[in-house]
């Protein structure tokens, strides 16, 4: 089996004088779920954007296995195997739930330019999309437009799009943000299920420490764009640098 790992080397991006991500070197191994934590504005989402290609690094590199993908466009990185679920829900509002997922399925299947075979005759792809919808418990709403879903269901659909892409690297950006308490377990169970497949690499940005504790094999901490801690969850959470950088300033950020 092809096992791909993801690595960033000295990854840096500058916006004018502001260094949003500052020389982050980190390797992510298959079969491992890494939680990326840090206070608001630490550069977590920017780091994600640099990996999935929405932003291009000022310096440093991103490697997928042996391949340097630093200069690839976002679509090319997706085709190379990097899947991304966005922090702010990012769907196709007027299309139905099923159509949203089918788009991801057809991309994964490499069906980009088929113009003459109607969608309804791609039975195998339709079945695949339906299976993904069942996994996120949205099969009952397949014909509703995505814009009509509740916030929690939109979050699930967001995750469904990534699962349907069948990537090597899964990138979750606060998948449970704004979800009601009873909806959160659906998404967490899903992530736990994905972890079962040890050929996949999972990255998770998350604020809820209980979620991080229950899912993460490893935690890295970003602070002011720098990687300040990296290790097993218990060890990282106990370290003084994290108490100061993350919990300390996060607490102050909340209070301000």
């Amino acid at each position, binding site marked *: 089996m092809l096992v791909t790992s993801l690595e960033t080397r000295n990854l840096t991006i500058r916006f004018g004088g502001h260094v949003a991500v500052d020389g982050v070197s980190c390797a992510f191994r298959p079969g491992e779920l890494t939680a990326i934590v840090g206070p608001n504005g630490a550069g977590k989402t920017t780091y994600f954007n640099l990996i999935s290609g929405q932003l291009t690094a000022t310096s440093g590199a991103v490697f997928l296995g042996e391949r340097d993908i630093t200069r690839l466009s976002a679509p090319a990185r997706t085709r190379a195997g990097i899947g991304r679920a966005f922090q702010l829900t990012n769907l196709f509002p007027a*299309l139905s739930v099923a159509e949203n997922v089918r788009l991801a399925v057809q991309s994964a299947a490499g069906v980009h330019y088929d113009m003459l075979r109607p969608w309804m005759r791609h039975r195998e792809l339709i079945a695949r999309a339906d299976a993904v919808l069942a996994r996120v418990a949205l099969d009952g709403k397949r014909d509703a437009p995505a814009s009509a879903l509740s916030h929690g269901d939109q979050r699930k659909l967001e995750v469904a799009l990534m699962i349907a892409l069948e990537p090597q690297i899964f990138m979750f950006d606060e998948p449970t943000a704004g979800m009601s308490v009873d909806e959160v377990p659906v998404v967490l169970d899903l992530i736990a299920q994905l972890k079962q497949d040890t050929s996949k690499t999972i990255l998770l940005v998350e604020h809820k420490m209980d979620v991080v504790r229950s899912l993460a094999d490893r935690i890295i901490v970003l602070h002011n764009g720098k990687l300040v801690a990296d290790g097993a969850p218990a060890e990282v959470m106990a370290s003084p640098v994290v108490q100061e950088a993350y919990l300390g300033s996060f607490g102050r950020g909340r209070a301000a």
Partner: protein
Amino acid sequence: MIMPLSGDPPRSRCLSIALVIIVLVLALAPFLFGGAKPLNVTAKICIFIALAASYDLLLGYTGVVSFAHTMFYGIGSYGIAIAMYGLGPRWGAAAVGLTVALPLAAALALVIGLFSLRVQTIFFAMITLAVASAFAVLASQLSWLTGGEDGRSFSVPEVLRPGFRVDVLGLNITGRMLTYYLVFACCAALFLLLLRIVNSPFGRVLQAIRENPFRAEALGFRTVIHRILANCIAAAAAAAAGALNALWLRYTGPDTSLSFSIMLDILLIVVIGGMGTMYGAIVGATLYVLAQNYLQALMGWVSTAAGEAGLPLVPSLFHPDRWLLWLGILFIASVYFFPAGIVGKLRGSR
């Protein structure tokens, strides 16, 4: 029914009934109406259905605003006209005209797309406006080729001429009828092809780009290539519609093929019918072309009747000279009351 409709049925009983009536009337028009005008109107409806459907692929499905659609329509019209004028009234000439015009339209769309679809769509709209204006000037300047402002009248193959007659099962079939059915069949084929394209995986990606281009890219689609392809397909389809228009009129000139008012017609047809529905092109083109051709006569009738009945104000309000005003009011009303177009309205209230 599902097969030719590509899995995208009208999804509204009222719409289905309206479509069946329109298609039946268009299909039987040569036998239903006497005289030249009704057949000219129905032929124009057929051609505008295909033309508006090709524009809907861009505007309604891909979310790209182009003002160059008449340019492609004109390329098709001039392709047929110049070929038939130069090579004589032969089928081979029509084939030459088409084999030059369709790829030329697609290639031009490709070039415009490469230069401007990479950036914001508003820039693309401006570029198409500039290129279309330049093309219209060019067509009227190159009078040795295009006939300039006078355009080109040409003869068509004998079976398509008005004088041609043949008896089929006791029916007297004229060349005009044959031309009409050629136009009808080609427009139907173009429409079904476009319907098929928008309901394919490719078509779904176009809708995804319209809805959220950023996310479409994050799903791995090369949005620029999809936009450019949609632009090329729409251009080739518009050129085909233009070729049919030339064949029907046996004439091509700036006013019948390149005028900016045709661009406005197309835009209004798609908006009134319902963007991103394809069927909107059928309903929109039918209503629009009928209004264009018969509103004036209808108003004249109302005005005279009201005058004879001695009503005040009404005769001058509906004076036939004011028909454009009323056409405008009808458009404003239809856009105001049916923001999703007639098809959107019918589907919403099923």
